[in-house]
């Protein structure tokens, strides 16, 4: 066994810049032998980038890595594997059509003299490995028939069969039930006993406190602190994660809200939505905070009729509305700016004009024929109003910058003059200038009476733009704050589960 004083891994002064963004700035991470080391931080804090550098996916611009006391180069994922560094991704990478044994020993199957697989030997070795780890799985089972938790076990067994000494687990429990989580934690203890170190990334603070020995907190691409877990409280971790940041410039609060516009009652679509209710008023910007996967996007999609729900009602202007498709939602005066601009919002190989008017062609056509003069005039109006920078209306939207692309998607809905607009991550990945313009626009629209629901993972944005803030966690609405009450710490505490809602609020 190694001397517990010498770290198995040291990453020192790691810096990584992407075009326009400093993703990591002089970050240090030390992991001790046989330690479960928690890595926490908000979305975009740099955890994933740091792990990608450790596993050879990215190369650092500056800094160096020492593994087991020796300086190492990790030019690609294969090199990381050879050193004994393995990662279990959130999205599992198993081959569902192959057996447990085949998955574990893929490409390294024990071979006979003619290169044929020695199946008995393969199953024997697999069984031995699984026994050693205390994993109860039959080696011959097809992996596609296993639960997510069991598939994860297969991946862990595979990493261990590659003689990994350091295992990175990225949000390993996000798809697991409570019982499966316990089994995973027992496995982690077994791994520790076998001399393996683990970097454990999770948003769930209770897990961090249950399983980790030490914790490193990251924020805005920087290393904030590393401390033994028993010297910390969940509240302190939240405070370290959120920190104090340079105040962004946000538009002043609005004129105040008007009548109730949209009421959602008990929308239910497990596991991502559990009896969710909310009220949205005309003239207000309602911020919806929560971690990725907390059900925010699922809520937006359910309201807009994209995904069917098991139960729940949507009332608009005091009337029960039947919304079974986006078309129905649009007829009710709704618009949705989706979270994934390129994947769900834009028609990249079509022009600015086509993208802008696609949702209102009915209105812009006669006998099915598009009135191109009006379509162009309408597009030009929005290009000017929103200051969309494009050389021409016939430019492919593909060639625009992120901010201008987002403005095109917003313009598409403004053209329909919706009374309810849902914006999912409206400023993700766009530059500061365009961001401020979009915030100002949202405020103007609300002041003109529109009801706006904004989903955002950026707490400063939620705090800066919203009149009222809701927090979701694991498919439930867990907190509501006024603009005045809300702080980053309080929102984060509810989003991570460090603070729990009163019992009656939890009930459906």
């Amino acid at each position, binding site marked *: 066994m190694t001397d517990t004083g010498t770290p198995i891994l040291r990453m020192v002064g790691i810096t990584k810049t992407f075009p326009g963004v400093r993703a990591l700035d002089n970050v240090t991470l030390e992991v001790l032998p046989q330690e479960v080391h928690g890595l926490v931080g908000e979305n975009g804090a740099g955890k994933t980038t740091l792990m990608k550098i450790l596993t050879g996916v990215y190369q650092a611009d500056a800094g160096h890595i020492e593994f087991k006391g020796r300086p190492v180069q990790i030019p690609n994922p294969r090199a990381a594997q050879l050193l004994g560094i393995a990662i279990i991704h959130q999205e599992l990478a198993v081959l569902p059509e192959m057996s447990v044994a085949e998955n574990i020993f893929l490409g390294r199957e024990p071979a006979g003299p003619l290169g044929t697989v020695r199946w008995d030997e393969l199953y024997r070795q697999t069984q031995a490995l699984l026994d050693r780890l205390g994993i109860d799985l039959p080696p011959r089972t097809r992996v596609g028939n296993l639960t997510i938790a069991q598939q994860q076990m297969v991946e862990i067994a595979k990493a261990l069969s590659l003689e990994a000494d350091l295992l990175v687990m990225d949000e390993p429990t996000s798809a697991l039930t409570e019982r499966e989580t316990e089994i995973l934690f027992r496995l982690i203890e077994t791994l520790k006993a076998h001399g393996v170190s683990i970097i454990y990334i999770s948003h769930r603070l209770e897990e961090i406190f249950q399983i980790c020995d030490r914790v490193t907190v990251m924020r805005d691409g920087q290393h904030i602190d590393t401390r033994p877990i028993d010297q910390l409280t969940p509240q302190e971790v939240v405070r370290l994660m959120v920190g104090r940041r340079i105040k962004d410039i946000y538009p002043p609060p609005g004129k105040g809200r008007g009548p109730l516009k949209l009421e959602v009652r008990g929308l239910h679509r497990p596991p991502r939505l559990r009896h969710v209710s909310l009220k949205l008023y005309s003239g207000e910007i309602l911020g919806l905070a929560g971690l990725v996967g907390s059900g925010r996007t699922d809520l937006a999609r359910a309201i*807009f009729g*994209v995904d069917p729900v098991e139960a729940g009602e949507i009332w608009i202007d005091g009337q029960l509305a039947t919304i079974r*498709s*986006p*078309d129905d*939602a*649009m007829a009710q005066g709704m618009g*949705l700016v*989706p979270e994934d601009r390129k*994947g*769900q*919002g*834009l*028609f*990249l*190989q*079509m022009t600015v004009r*086509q993208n802008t008017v*696609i*949702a209102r*062609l*009915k209105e812009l*056509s006669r006998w*099915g*024929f*598009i009135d191109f003069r009006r379509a162009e005039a309408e597009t030009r109006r929005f290009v000017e109003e929103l200051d969309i920078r494009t050389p021409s209306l016939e430019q492919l939207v593909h*060639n625009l910058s992120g901010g201008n692309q987002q403005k095109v998607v917003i313009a*598409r809905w403004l053209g329909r003059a919706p009374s309810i607009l849902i914006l999912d991550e409206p400023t993700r990945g766009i530059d500061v200038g365009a961001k401020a313009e979009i915030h100002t626009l949202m405020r103007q629209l609300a002041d003109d009476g529109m009801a706006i629901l904004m989903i955002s993972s950026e707490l400063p944005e939620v705090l800066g733009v919203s009149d009222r803030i809701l927090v979701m966690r694991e498919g439930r609405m867990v907190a509501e704050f006024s603009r005045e009450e809300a702080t980053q710490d309080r929102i984060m505490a509810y989003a991570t589960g460090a603070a729990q809602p009163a019992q009656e609020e939890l009930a459906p």
Partner: protein
Amino acid sequence: MNRYSLGSILQRFGIAISFVLLCVALSLLSDRFLTLPNIVNVLRQITINGIIAVGMTYVILIAEIDLSVGSVLALTSIVTADMLQKGLPIPLAILIGLALGALLGAVNGVITAKFRVPSFITTLGMLTSARGAALLYTEGRPITGLPDGFRALGRGEVAGIPAPVLIAGVVFVLGWLILKRTQAGEYIYAIGNNPTAARLVGISIDRYRTLVFLVAGLLAALAGMILTARLNSAQPTAGVAFELDAIAAVVLGGTSFSGGVGGLGGTLLGALIIGVLDNGLNLLNISSLYEQLVKGAVIALALLIHRK
């Protein structure tokens, strides 16, 4: 981006350049090539493939495929010819044939759109079953001897222009208008570009998918009418592998197999290249043993030029 770089010119006009080069080469090799009768002959020969290719363009634009057009052509031809022989009025018989084509297309569309079966599989099933139905219907025999009025569809002329060319012209113009000038056309491009986004702007993508397959079936039936009228005979084995020529024309014309990009202008050129190639190989008396090999090589070459 330089709009006038060699690469972008080739990409935009490559297929037109290939076509012109091919015509120049053939006119140098054969003095019969650039004569009016030969040109009319080429146009007449591409009408069948051209009409089918219009439907195929729609299908490929929404990132689907229709392998069944040749079989649909055969079955609708047989049914129409049988109706004619049973003494039904010509317009009614034609209408029944076209309606059957549309119906078979709609079946392809519904199975693909509603039941999420890949169109490759759906239309492969239709290819086999429609062909089987055609063989069963006639017990494998052709139906010959059709009324003169119907045969005019294949052999008639209006102001010196052969009727089939006229019909194909109308199909292309209408097809182009729908694609470039109407809401439906815009939706077809949107669905091909990004079906997820299309759904989120309220487009009923299942309905448009079904409609597109319906149009492909309808046009296959129309092409079948012309072929039957020209040959004065409907054959259950007609149209074998016609889907391949149609797909070749569409792809040569620059329509992307992944959907959303391309159009009928390119398809027209693609159909012309294939037609001129067939014609040239005939004129040059190249043995039919070499014909397919040469044709394949030229198509591959043309594709290479305008992909780069």
